[in-house]
């Protein structure tokens, strides 16, 4: 597979403020790359530069093997599409909205009509064709915006937090459409999201962007279970982060032995453990795992889950399904917590 997008030293500054620091990465044809990171990390600016609608301050972008220059943008954009967080609908009918990109490309009226009808049918939205775009709900509006992009048959899609303003049902529908587009048409996709589970559901690779740079890029498993540093770990929701030591082949912190670490040289380390990888019980837990005894500090419900803090030398954050446990943990209870050795990540 060849690189369809390749970026060298790409940076963007507004005045003196550099919002995207020089970046190097490439994306293969047919791949889905998710970029996750907090707001203001430069994700949107990066996507706009890749879609050539915002000029870069430095560096170069190669798309379809062709370098982006002032003169090549128009031809390159013909093969790409972009969807924004904020739904953009023009004050026209649904079909006129969808036909807009085609009319910009001087596609004939008949061809336009045919392709718009096709895509509406494919999306199960045929009855919407003549409706005014103003009558659509948020989810419907974003689907129409997506249709407007797809109807131009893009080979690369840039999606800038496309589901951030949508309810869970509309989000799921759009995610299915995104995956369908990738699987059926082999469309290369870069999607910005702050929803980590979304990046896991959709992406082949995940890049974590913070303060204008990629701090980690890899498979979803690598990023979520083996974050390269504390900042990434905190962002991807590793609640249990301890500064500990490796001595005599064991990683310990606060008197708790987390796991054997025979290949790690002695010294100070960061120990990371995801809250959902820890199990909680009032009785002794099976011996195949590391188990310690502690006392419940607090216990609160978060949706369908129970979030319990346990003091076992260090304060552990534990998440378990509420149905399984019932509301049986109160502060002061003596409990056992346990985790598998391979759930611990040391850096």
């Amino acid at each position, binding site marked *: 597979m060849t690189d369809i997008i390749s970026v060298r030293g790409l940076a963007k500054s507004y005045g003196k403020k550099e919002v995207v620091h020089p970046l190097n990465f490439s994306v293969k044809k047919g791949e889905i790359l998710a970029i996750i990171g907090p707001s203001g990390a430069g994700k949107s600016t990066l996507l706009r530069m890749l879609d050539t609608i915002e000029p870069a301050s430095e560096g170069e972008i190669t798309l379809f093997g062709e370098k982006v220059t002032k003169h090549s943008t128009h031809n390159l954009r013909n093969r790409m599409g972009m969807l924004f967080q904020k739904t953009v609908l*023009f004050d026209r009918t649904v079909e006129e909205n969808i036909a807009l990109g085609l009319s*910009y490309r001087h596609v004939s009226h008949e061809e336009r009509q045919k392709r718009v009808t096709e895509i509406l049918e494919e999306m199960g939205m045929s009855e919407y064709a003549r409706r005014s775009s*103003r009558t659509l709900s948020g989810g419907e509006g974003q689907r129409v915006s997506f249709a407007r992009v797809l109807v131009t048959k893009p080979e690369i899609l840039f999606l800038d937090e496309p589901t951030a303003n949508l309810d869970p049902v509309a989000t799921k529908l759009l995610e299915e459409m995104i995956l369908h587009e990738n699987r059926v048409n082999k469309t290369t996709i870069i999607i910005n999201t702050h929803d980590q589970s979304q990046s896991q559901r959709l992406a082949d690779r995940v890049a974590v962007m913070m303060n204008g740079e990629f701090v980690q890029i890899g498979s979803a498993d690598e990023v979520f279970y083996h974050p390269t540093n504390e900042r990434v770990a905190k962002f991807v929701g590793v609640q249990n982060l301890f500064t500990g030591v490796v001595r005599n082949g064991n990683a310990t912190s606060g008197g708790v032995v987390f796991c054997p670490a025979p290949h790690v040289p002695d010294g100070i380390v960061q120990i990371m453990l995801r809250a959902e990888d820890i199990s909680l019980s009032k009785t002794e837990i099976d011996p195949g795992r590391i188990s310690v005894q502690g006392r419940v500090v607090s216990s609160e419900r978060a949706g369908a889950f129970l979030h319990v803090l346990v003091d076992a030398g260090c304060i552990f954050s534990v998440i378990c399904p509420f149905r399984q446990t019932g509301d049986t943990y109160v502060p002061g209870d003596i409990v056992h917590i346990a985790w598998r050795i391979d759930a611990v990540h040391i850096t």
Partner: protein
Amino acid sequence: MGEITDGFLEAITLIVTMNPELMEIAGRSLYVSSIATLVAALIAIPIGAVIYYYDFRGKRTVINLVQTLYALPTVIVGLLVYLLVSNSGPLGSLKLLYTVNAMIIAQVILVSPLIVGLAIAALSGLDKEMKYTTMALNARAYRAMMTLVRETKFAILSAVVLAFGRAIAEVGAVMMVGGNIRHFTRTLTTAITLNTSMGEFSTSIALGIILLTIALIVNFGVNFFQHYNGRMKDD
């Protein structure tokens, strides 16, 4: 007091009987200002769109300058156009001085900045993503601008109607370059000026009522378009 009451009664008679000279003057006023507003809109809306669409050095200054020109004194425009079209001016050979066309030119200059400025303001009210979307859909600049102007049609129409109101109500410029010649270049405002200075209050009041009625209709127009514009934003 009697003079004013009499003036009012006579004015109403003049309007009700559709006095030919009165109608001629009102018709000329409407003609001059309509053409001027139309021409100004055709020039000013694209200029506004270009200023909005492109990022360039000094953009803020240009916008400030345009906004300053909203308050351009009508006599200054009159002077400018007079110098331009007088016999010794650069356009002197066209023999435009004291014609309706000179008056139209003056009003175009007068109201264009208003339309440019309000068009920029209307377009700037659009979401940034809307401009990005036209670019991402690969519109050429002029197509993108047309799409975006179309999105702000109500706000821009209300700007145009407002410009018409300014054009039809001004007196300084048309007086200077039109000359207030009876049956030729006399408009509602110049006629009011003349008749008042001659003590012909009834005619002045009649002309004034017509002018106010036009202003009222203009204001209804602005409100109508702004209401539509507001409703679009609420949705």
